[in-house]
């Protein structure tokens, strides 16, 4: 077991280093032009050169990500609680929520821009749209997963509706809630970038568009690298919060 864990820890950096070397070597041998496929070393140089610029654009993107993510979180919490409490709301809203996920984002993004302007509002709305669904699915599933016997036991104990909700259903929903939250966190940055891509003043998405149009492929790769780091950052932030909030419950995960 221990050996397995150790290999897991070192296998990622090793495979990553090998991939980088193969990439660097291939570009060197094939003499691929920079605008088609820059070598990792070129990407690194571009990253260093454009770093202040990338940080400025990244700050705007993260502002959209954080506000969208938090808005989605609040909206999900309110709507999930209402849907669990009033079955009829669930029946009415659920189909629309599923349908909202089937409309392509690259159609919605320009539409939102036409409706809500060039500022950050349409971007925040796209992030909300991306994050809302996975969070709500996780939360609704978690809130409704109480064993029937536990419901009955609580009834015999004469628990009130709000006691059942806050003392049992909400804590019980936490693992599934966090699963949804992690998916939302991982996609939130991509959502913001996509909506900036179609038009924005600032942001990692518009930086992508500009790099592409000017054939600065190395800068484009550097931008993608930042997007990956930020997405992972969001993901691990949620994972960290989850561990902080529900530590010592490893077995509970295995059970449910």
């Amino acid at each position, binding site marked *: 077991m221990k050996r397995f864990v150790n290999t897991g820890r070192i296998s990622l950096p090793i495979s990553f280093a090998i991939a980088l070397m193969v990439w660097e070597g291939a570009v060197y041998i094939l003499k691929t032009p920079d605008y088609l496929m820059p070598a990792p070393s070129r990407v690194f140089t571009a990253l260093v050169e454009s770093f202040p610029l990338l940080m400025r654009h990244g700050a705007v993107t993260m502002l959209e990500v954080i506000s969208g993510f938090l808005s989605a979180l609040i909206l999900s919490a309110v709507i999930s609680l209402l849907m669990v409490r009033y079955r009829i709301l669930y029946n009415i809203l659920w189909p629309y929520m599923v349908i909202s996920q089937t409309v392509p984002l690259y159609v919605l993004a320009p539409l939102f821009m036409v409706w809500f302007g060039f500022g950050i509002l349409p971007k925040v709305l796209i992030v909300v749209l991306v994050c809302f669904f996975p969070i709500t699915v996780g939360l609704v599933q978690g809130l409704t997963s109480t064993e029937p016997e536990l419901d009955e036991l609580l009834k015999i104990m004469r628990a009130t509706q709000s006691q059942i909700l806050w*003392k049992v259903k909400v804590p019980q929903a936490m693992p599934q809630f966090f699963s949804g939250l992690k998916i939302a966190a991982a996609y939130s940055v991509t959502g913001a970038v996509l909506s900036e891509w179609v038009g924005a003043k600032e942001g990692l998405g518009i930086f992508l568009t500009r790099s592409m149009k000017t054939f600065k492929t190395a800068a484009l790769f550097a931008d993608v690298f930042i997007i990956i780091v930020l997405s992972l950052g969001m993901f691990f932030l949620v994972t960290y919060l989850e561990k902080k909030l529900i530590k010592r419950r490893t077995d509970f995960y295995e059970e449910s």
Partner: protein
Amino acid sequence: MGLVVDIKGLSKTYKIGGEKLPVLKEVYLSAGKGSFISVIGPSGCGKSTLFRTIAGLEKEFSGTVMVNEQDIRSNPPRLAYMFQKDLLLPWRTVIKNIVLPLELSGKLKEADIKNLEVLINEFGLAGFENAYPHELSGGMRQRAALLRTWLMDGDIILLDEPFGALDALTRINMQDWLIKVWENHRKTVLFITHDIEEAVYLSDRIFVMSKRPGTIIDNVAIEFERPRNRNMLYTEVFLEYKKRLVTLLKDDKLL
């Protein structure tokens, strides 16, 4: 000795799809205050449905069910109930699980937690107050669930096969322990089991149920003196009881 549970002519039919499935038929059962009553019968005979009805979980039935001399139709009964599953909340420590009934009824005070120490000791949970359920053995989880049941409202405790999921050895220890705790407190206990030995060892009276639709075929008073000890199970008298119960159940073509 007043009757705290008195059931007369209880029948119940489930409707599954369009079909009617009779589960309980003309059940008569009563329990005196402070007695240990077992209900024994084959799986699926309606024992659990009977208990669920007494607890007020089943609304549709015919006949009368009196708990503490009040009709449960007009006065929802106050009693304690334990399912076969321990149903401990995995995110709460043992102590937090145990005090849940007090917490829900708003009776939880710091002083109570102090008083709980005695009970925690008696239930063999001392030193595990701050452990989480998954860190406990099956027997301990069951004892924690039982202590939680103990702290529920009312002096009547319904136990639906509390030891059903335990291994044979743990089960024997739990029986020894339960009988000791019960003899200390003398609450009214209604106990479901399909283990004849367990029923004889623990009970003052055993009600024998037929297969579905369940009805009470007979009831047997167990006249071993209290406090009970396991040696009573190796006597002629015990074998007589066992023989009688097996015959009753067998005549019903169950065993």
